[in-house]
């Protein structure tokens, strides 16, 4: 068996090796550790790109761990959707990693690099696995790593927010287990493809239980995706997190969305009796409300990082509007917009950091401060990120929104969807224009400039006395590199939209074609 046959496991193996090795070398040889971490991200990207390319022809690759045949062992499934998610995660990881290292955010606490790699391990595992319990395990890996990263740098606000974030997610994980228990009790399997086959054979007497399981499972995913009303954990958590981490977290809600896209058609598709498309009637209204709430948050938020956090919620809502259609076209739109919105969210957090780092005590709050270094450039970056986040042309958000608008047209409730998407875009634009014009255009009058009280400080910053607190005034533009890369990727996503949408379209078709997955996972029989 050639090494390429094992490529499917690479996105898991790479960070799983990098993390412990980085942990071992980090204390003595810091640069080696950082280099390792970088190399790992780069290798993950290479592996993901190879898988992306390999999946282009429509082959669904499976990888039976321990050589135990599916459905008895755990199986990894690489289809186009997985490949897209892996590529996205790896790209994002590089951006976040570059930013963390260049801004020295990785030095503001312990174990940034091991935790970061473990986070990637969790993400990649979740995107690869074809086993529902294994999905749970990787959820936990990515969550516990995210707790560590979220609290990186600490400080009271972060700690307080961390408590809430952690507890909500522990509750969510518990609910996941209940749903898993029900599904195993009913179907006797954990393999998703197998489960999809077995739900079709469940008797009428067990339909209620099956539907409960389906709804429970999807609401756990919705909690991760921060769908209203299960979104309340997100705004503060993301707003106070170290920006490089928040940028990486842009993909965390998408894990929830990914899971919905992965599980619902495969397990609760047409054949699932009472559970067939069980979450569908709630998904669209929830998505619409999420969109509005998210961008309303952008409209009223007073700091860039908060705006970014709300933008994440809003974009997830928009994304789910498309997902809720469950058609090839809508899923195409969803996948394209998923990639876009993840990068856009990351760009926003990074730009917020660029601003905060230059405005000292004013942080990234929308209050006029003194002029700061590279203000125009930062403003330009912000504008680009905001354009991306709101979905204005010329960046990919616009194409994404056009895709969604076109694909949902004519579906039930499409008028609401359109209104929500367009209205949310407008309020988002107004919100970003307001904060942007205050931060980048308005100068503080003298009264304001002297008024630098402690409450003003960006919550994300460390308390006094932390070792890296006293950094020199930013003279270099190195912290702009990561956001520029993010925006460049968004540009590439616009320019290559034809190719990207074609790939997404084929991925969408593959998602909805259960038979193909079943054949690939369980064999021809």
């Amino acid at each position, binding site marked *: 068996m050639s090494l390429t046959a*094992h490529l499917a496991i690479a996105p898991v193996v790479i960070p799983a090796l990098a993390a412990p090795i980085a942990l071992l070398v980090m204390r003595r040889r810091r640069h080696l550790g950082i280099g390792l971490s970088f190399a790992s991200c780069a290798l993950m990207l290479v592996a993901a790109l190879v898988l992306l390319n390999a999946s282009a022809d429509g082959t669904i690759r499976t990888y039976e761990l321990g050589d135990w045949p599916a459905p008895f062992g755990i199986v990894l499934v690489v289809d186009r959707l997985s490949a897209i998610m892996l590529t996205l995660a790896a790209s994002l990881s590089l951006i976040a990693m570059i930013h963390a290292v260049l801004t020295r955010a990785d030095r503001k606490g312990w174990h940034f690099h091991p935790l970061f790699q473990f986070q990637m391990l969790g993400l990649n595992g979740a995107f690869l696995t074809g086993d529902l319990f294994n999905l749970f395990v990787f959820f936990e890996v990515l969550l*516990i790593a995210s707790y560590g990263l979220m609290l990186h740098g600490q400080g009271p606000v972060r700690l307080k927010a961390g408590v809430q974030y952690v507890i909500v997610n522990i509750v969510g994980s518990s609910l996941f287990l209940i749903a898993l228990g029900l599904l195993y009790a009913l179907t006797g399997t954990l393999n998703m493809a197998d489960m999809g086959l077995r739900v079709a054979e469940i008797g009428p007497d067990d339909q209620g239980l099956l539907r409960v399981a389906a709804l429970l499972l999807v609401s756990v995913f919705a909690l991760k995706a921060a769908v209203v009303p299960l979104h309340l954990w997100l705004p503060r958590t993301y707003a106070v997190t170290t920006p490089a981490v928040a940028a990486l977290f842009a993909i965390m809600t998408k894990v929830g969305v990914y899971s919905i896209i992965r599980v619902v058609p495969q397990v609760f598709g047409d054949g699932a009796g009472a559970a067939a498309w069980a979450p569908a009637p709630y998904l669209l209204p929830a998505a619409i409300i999420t969109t509005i709430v998210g961008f309303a948050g952008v409209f009223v938020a007073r700091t860039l990082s908060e705006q970014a956090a709300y933008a994440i919620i809003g974009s997830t809502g928009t994304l789910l509007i498309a997902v809720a259609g469950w058609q090839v076209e809508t899923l195409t739109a969803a996948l394209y917009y998923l990639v876009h919105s993840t990068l856009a969210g990351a760009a926003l957090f990074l730009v917020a950091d660029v601003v905060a780092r230059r405005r000292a005590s004013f942080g990234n709050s929308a209050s006029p401060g003194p002029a700061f270094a590279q203000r125009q450039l930062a403003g330009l970056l912000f504008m680009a990120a905001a354009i991306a986040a709101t979905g204005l042309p010329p960046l990919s958000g616009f194409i994404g929104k056009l895709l969604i608008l076109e694909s949902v047209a004519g579906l039930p409730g499409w008028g609401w969807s359109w209104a929500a998407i367009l209205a949310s875009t407008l309020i988002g634009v107004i919100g970003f224009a307001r904060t942007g014009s205050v931060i980048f255009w308005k100068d503080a009058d003298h009264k304001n400039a002297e008024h630098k009280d402690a409450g003003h400080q960006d919550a994300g910053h460390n308390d006094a006395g932390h070792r890296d607190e006293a950094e020199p005034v930013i003279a270099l533009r190195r912290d702009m590199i990561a956001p520029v890369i993010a925006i460049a990727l968004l540009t590439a996503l616009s320019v290559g939209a034809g190719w990207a949408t074609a790939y997404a379209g084929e991925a969408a078709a593959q998602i909805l074609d259960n038979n193909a997955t079943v054949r690939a996972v369980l064999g021809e029989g």
Partner: protein
Amino acid sequence: MAIPLTLYTLVSLPFVVALLIAVSGTHQRSLHAGLAAAGSAIGFALIVSVAGRVTGGEILAVTTPWVPAIGLDISLMIDPLGLMFAGLILGIGLLVMIFSHFYLGKGEATARFYASLMLFQGAMLGIVISGNVLMLLIFWELTSLSSFLLIGFWQHKAEARQGARMALAITGGGGLVLIAGMLLLGITAGSFDLLTILQSGDVIQASPLYPVILVLILIGCFTKSAQFPFHFWLPHAMAAPTPVSAYLHSATMVKAGVFLLARLWPVLSGTDLYTIIVTSVGLITMTFGAWVALFRHDLKSILAYSTISQLGLLVMLLGFSIKMAAVAAVFHIINHAAFKAALFMSAGIVDHETGTRDIRRLGGLAKVMPVTAIIVTLAAAAMAGLPPLGGFISKEMMLDETLEVGLFGLPWLVPVIATIAATLSVGYSLRLAVHLFFGSARDPEPYARAHDPGFGMWASPALLVIIAVLLGFAPMLLAGPLVVSVASAVIGGEAPEPGLALWHGVNLALGMSLFAVAIGVLLLWRHGPLLRWYEAMRHLDAKSLFQSTLTSADTVVRKLIVATHSPSLQRMLLATFAVIVLLIIEGALTGGGSFTGTRAGLAASPVAIGAWLLLIAATGAVIYAERQRFIALIYISVIGLIIALAFVHLSAPDLALTQISVEVVTILLLLLALNLMPKKPPVLSSAPQRWRDALLAITGGLGVGGAAWAMLTRNPNDPISSYHLAKSYSGGGGTNVVNVTLVDFRAFDTLGEIIVLGIAGLAIFALLDTTSRGAAGARLRSWQEDMPHSPERHPVMFVMSTRILLPLVLAAGIYIFLRGHNEPGGGFIAALVVAIAFLLQYLASGFDWTDARRRVGEHFMIAFGVLVAMATGLGSLVFGANFLASAFDYYTLPLVGEFELATALLFDIGVFAVVFGAVMMALQQLSHIAQRAARAHAAQLDADGEEGSP
């Protein structure tokens, strides 16, 4: 040049130039202006080069697929309409670039200015030569964005920022509505290709969606072209530098709405709905704008309202749905572009040279600024529609067409109002020229400063005025063919012969025109009293209305968002549990089926019932003693014990072992934390809150318990675990199926699981390592023990017993580890047991004593464990098997007998190391915090002291 190349060059040139300017450095004023002007000139030349072919009836088009999934192609198309607009954009653009160079001061950020201006030029050009409506939308929104940047160019001015945001909100918002309209249009027409759409007028007008499409598109057009009631952003956009106003807010961007109306004229016009809406909006805007313009004092404000009025005129003409009106509109577009841009530039000159734009402070400037006076007077005459200028001709045509249209069944309505509007136009136009240049100087200060600018500055407006004049004298020669071909493009068929001439004989239109001039002069004469009357009236200030709407929206939404999103864990959890409970209920009710299944139950033994009672009682006790945290903890351990018993009873020995050992470690953790926390906190929630929570809790309990009951009373559905049972020994080499599952069948899960523990250990370390610093350190240093304590730290019996226990428990741990594959046990449980053995030493002999005897760091253990597990997994790759494939075999040694070696054991070593490392890490880090914090602080102080000394 080949046509595709020409088109692509045309549309990309401005962007390239913008980029060049942006990267060319900040102090290159002339270079910036030069690049911008050159870019515009080249573009203009390209347009001129194709003009002949286009006016000759050829449509130049090129298409490259971009996003086929949505029908978005890179499609460019130049027909006469596009040609005319492109010419205006580039021609006036060139003049504006030149003018700007002289207008802008030395310190201005010219790079940003010209880059934004070129960005706008590209976007605007894109709108008019897009061959795909989705492309058009992209450029449409880009003009809003670039206009935002340009209006806000003087960023330090509040009115600039506000004006920019307002313009963005209105035009950007309108653009979004337009998106909806265009998408529906394209979906209805079956294509987003402009030419296809233009040929689908019948289909679209027959569609039930037509009214929706129409209204949506019109909103887009009206917002962009500042039509009532969306007009108010335009006057505030005048905060932009004057060249910007001249370019965007008179000649080009505001015409985008008019352009789109013209572009879609064949598709949308001709219905009653269209005529009524477009005509009345245009009419109202034309009149209203003119009326307000009459009373403004700021030159640019006068011009802004006059622009609104003129745009209304154009919209109205297009709304008539009459071919000849369309011809009139086309001709007026050209006229207006010429005289209005000239006027704006002149306003800029006046501002530049006198330091004010307040018409009340100016007057008699003709003496000191003769050139400017001539330019403005001629342009104003054109605006007033006085002969012999082009404006006169187009106004005549307009008035003539009004006679053809009856609105609301009233044939006189449109002509009468149009005449009134024309009158007002004459009024404000004359006022502009007369009050500026004639009479006496009203304020000596600006007058004293005033003089004509240099040639560079007045050349551009002069050229435009010459065009405006020539358009009156030789309209057919200069504009005739263009107007005809453009009008044909608008109409989508043969345009009627326009007959552009100053003199059409005595007709009603001439009468109306004369009336307008006469009354207009009257208005100027009586302007003073009129102004006092006007200013005595209350005016609805659209800007403050907009601002206050936005502010109150902000306040309300903010209140809502803050109220609902203030970070409250309790709310988050309430929402979560409520959603779950509702969904469980929904699922059960909708799904149907019976609550109790058919599986026969197992009879409960007395000890089971006893244990059950214990568990229920202990749970109740936890709730009851909730705030007495220590006692609640004791009750919790009872529950843990009962659950371990339950696992024993229910054939799950591995789980019992796990439960017992995890329980011990958990209790230690909780006690360590509790020591530094309040032991008995005050009541937090009110009685109603507690009842609410209790209700939710009971419902949740019923739901989950009910689901468990339903599950337990059903027969299993041929679970995959029968395979595991069958293959455990033969395929996995172990008889403990649970362990074989953990280290073999589902070793990947276990890998993830140990990594979770390892990460938890690392994260805990990261979290606690900083405890000695900052607020936490201060709190720890000042921490007062809240209970009286015994002075004895290490009770002798305890210490001595743990010393004999250590080797014994370690031996037990090794045993549990080794036999885990075949009997209950395994790496995880063994690790906990071994960890507990060492924790006992910490507990009895203290942190320092034990820590000093520790040999391997926890970080190493965690890393080592993960690496061992990974290496085991990767090892199988060497043998051509998949990741984590296991191997085992039986060997026989003399005396020893048969024994088994399995790679799973190696994997289990990894499990052991990670679990041990993580558990030790968590407990160690959590113990002795206060003392360690004090010590760390002292060490820090020492270090600081040493650093301070030389």
